């Protein structure tokens, strides 16, 4: 068996005195599309922040491509090929679309490939070509999300992490984003997707982890999860989100 691309073991993290993660373990293999599901406050974003080094974990280890990346600086981790599209479409609003994309390319020093990469990006996101010299802040929510994903793609990440890409988007736009994620996976990208919209995410992912109260509650293939866990109870039932057999 080959080694997983990303291994997170027994990760604990806290904000001040509040412990947010109580030992999360997960794996992502090359070429996989893996989802991290759970309600608000389950620890999804905290896990991503710890992986990218923005938040320092209290305990646990994170290994990426055989290298220990725990407690390294975020900018070093990005250079290893691990890109995060942060929650809430954090694009640079006063910079133009072009500058946003150029910044993405800086991270990996792929400047000779810049023009070719732009062409690819424009094929995936035609709207960005139209908006090329406009400030990013003038784009609509969906366009900003596309820009954020495109910016991360410019760095040719080996693993792309998306933090709630559908947050605050219209249903039509959400559809578009999910189609896009599926397409990226078909093109060979490895993706770790954080989503609240579990039903939608399970339609496209290979495997999923269900987080609850800072712990992994369930792990398995998308099919398993759909079969064995009553998704609705996770979101409406609060604590008793324990796996249960759904009568067939």
């Amino acid at each position, binding site marked *: 068996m080959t080694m997983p691309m990303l291994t997170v073991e027994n990760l604990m993290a806290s904000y001040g005195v509040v412990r947010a993660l109580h030992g999360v373990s997960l794996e992502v293999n090359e070429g996989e599309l893996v989802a991290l599901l759970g309600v608000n406050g389950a620890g999804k974003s905290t896990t991503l922040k710890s992986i990218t080094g923005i938040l320092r974990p209290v305990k646990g280890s994170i290994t990426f491509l055989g290298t220990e990346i725990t407690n390294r600086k975020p900018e070093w981790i990005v250079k290893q090929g691990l890109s995060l599209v942060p929650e809430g479409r954090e694009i640079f609003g*006063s910079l133009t679309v072009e500058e946003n994309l150029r910044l993405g390319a800086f991270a990996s020093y792929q400047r000779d490939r810049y023009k070719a990469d732009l062409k690819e990006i424009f094929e995936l996101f035609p709207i960005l070509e139209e908006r090329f010299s406009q400030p990013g802040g003038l784009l609509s929510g969906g366009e900003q999300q596309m820009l954020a994903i495109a910016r991360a793609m410019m760095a040719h990440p080996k693993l792309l992490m998306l933090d709630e890409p559908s947050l605050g988007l219209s249903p039509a736009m959400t559809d578009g984003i999910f189609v896009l994620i599926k397409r990226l996976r078909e093109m060979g990208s490895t993706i770790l997707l954080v989503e609240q919209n579990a039903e939608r995410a399970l339609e496209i992912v290979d495997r999923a982890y269900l987080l609850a109260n800072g712990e992994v509650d369930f792990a398995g293939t998308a099919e398993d999860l759909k079969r064995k866990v009553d998704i609705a109870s996770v979101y409406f039932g609060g604590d008793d989100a324990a796996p249960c057999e759904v009568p067939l």
Partner: protein
Amino acid sequence: MSLYARFLKFAQKHSVLPMIMIPVVLVGIGVNVFGSSLLLNVYTYFCVSLIMVLGLQMFMGNSGILNWVHIGFVGVGAYASGILSTAPMVKSMGVPNMFPALVELNMPVIPAIMIGGLVAALLAAIIGYPLMRLSDFVGVITLFATLIVFHVIMTQWDNVTNGPRTFFGVPEFTTLTVALIGALIALVVAYWFRESGLGLRLRASRDDRYAAMSIGIDVVRVRYYGFITSALVAGLAGGVWAHFITSFSPKAFYISEMFILLSMVVIGGSGSISGAFMGTTFVTIGRELLRQVEGTINNAHVLSFEVYGLTEAVMAILMIVILIWRPGGVVGGQELRWPLFKRNKPSVTKEVSDGV
């Protein structure tokens, strides 16, 4: 794309530089030929201010950190250049306690100004790194405290600066032409810096620090390099200023002067060099007009008291009004550009239907 179309696109993209530089040069020539000595002085002062303000914009505008200590680096450049170029005899008379090694120094003005800039940059490199780790109001207050430290050292170290007393006898060198050339160079440098990779990363860190970190920008390091570059320009501006004014004291490098520089950057819009230029223009004109008004009122004795400080008070009120009206400054964060001469605009309706 044809070569001509490509040139047009390039020229349009960078049109802000000629749009500022050509008027600056034309007015400069006009003032030089027709202007009175007062106007000549005002315009020279304007050009020197422009260098200082562009230096301030390079760091503050691009990083979003209110840089109070900027005027301190101007002072370092002014004193360094003054000490290096003033005749030993003048120094031994004017600064009785000066270190003998410093008294003997004597070099032509241009290298003295250059070294003054380097000294300021070196100082910024020594003290800058820990300061750049701080953001928001913590960063502002530490930079402000650093300015106080600079001021105390300048007023107390009478072996170097002549303490709080005036340092005089600096050779005159900065004519209108010199200041104008300096301002033009500063414009190009500030614009180039803003568009460079470093400037772009700095602007990204200003827009969103965490997003910048998450795409691999070392925020502290880009701020640090920006701070040093800005201090270099400040030091050079200080040298140019010192050889214009020829005698000065530490008072010239403190809060009230810094406030003028800040008002220039903030009124115009700190995010762009167009803003820095507009702010410097407005504030210089406003300041000179108000000074005339103030003088006239005082000389005519129409009031039973004298109205000192009218200039500063009105400038401060003006700044408040403009910032309520346009928080991003008059110009805002984007550079001015020559209007597009595009023939085939994409149809608006199509864009809208695609965007939904």
